[in-house]
């Protein structure tokens, strides 16, 4: 009979580089504060927020959400591929994710063009100030995420990652999922809930 004390299962390591998780945490803190301030400011301006929320293009918001969720799924597939040593497949999935991110940027640019053409700016009213600053801040994160994914795709194509050494792919994936996570809250908050 085994008399040794039962051992606790060891916690799994965080995927990717530990440094990216501190960066993700800081980013989430900033977005979290932004979201809560938006919700609190809305309490004092409910009619204004409800009225101007109706002017947003929710169909573009919906399409963008579907694009980002799909891009995140493609990144998951890229990580799965490199873990099986399928570098070519990993590159393919990363390009698919980049296409999703690119689609997001195009649709968002169309949305901004519509608003800016109508003379809407940060100083139009409190709702637009939040709408523009929140979504533009997120837009910049999508661009950064795409740059990281592209750099990783180029490295993967050159054979820099293998089944046993692919921290870079996991690091890029973690950052991209953070961008998706933020949008998953931002979309209903700014476009739908009223």
């Amino acid at each position, binding site marked *: 009979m085994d008399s040794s004390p039962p051992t606790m299962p060891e916690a799994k390591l*965080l995927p990717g580089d530990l440094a990216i998780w501190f960066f993700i945490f800081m980013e*989430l803190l900033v977005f979290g504060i932004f979201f*809560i301030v938006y919700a609190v400011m809305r*309490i004092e301006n409910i009619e204004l927020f409800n009225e101007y929320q109706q002017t947003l293009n929710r169909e573009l918001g919906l399409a963008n959400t*579907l694009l980002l969720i799909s891009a995140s799924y493609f990144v998951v597939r890229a990580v799965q591929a490199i873990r099986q040593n399928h570098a070519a497949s990993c590159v393919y999935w990363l390009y698919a994710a980049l296409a999703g991110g690119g689609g997001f940027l195009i649709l968002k640019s169309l949305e901004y063009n519509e608003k800016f053409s109508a003379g809407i700016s940060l100083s139009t009213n409190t709702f637009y100030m939040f709408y523009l600053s929140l979504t533009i801040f997120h837009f910049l994160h999508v661009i950064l995420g795409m740059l990281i994914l592209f750099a990783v795709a180029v490295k993967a194509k050159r054979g820099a990652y293998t089944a046993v050494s692919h921290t870079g792919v996991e690091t890029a994936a973690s950052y991209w999922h953070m961008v*998706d996570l933020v949008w998953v809250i931002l979309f209903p908050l700014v476009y739908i809930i009223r």
Partner: protein
Amino acid sequence: MKTLYNVHTIWLLMMLLTLASYFVGEVGPGGWLAMLFVLVAALVKGIFIIRDFMELHGVSLLWRVIMYGWLWVVCISIAVAYFI
């Protein structure tokens, strides 16, 4: 059952939740119940992203508390601000 819970079905479920949220907001009955549904759908999608896409299932408790804590605090704060 375990075979049904994978990244493919999670992706499909998140797409369906997104479509459902849009239709509830657009053509649904409105009111606090509809908005609660939209917020809960966002919370569920966030849990899927953290648990299964970011692969934080089984990592140290500290990181799970940080990530899920952020999600819950944000969602509950929004709910409180909208429904008080």
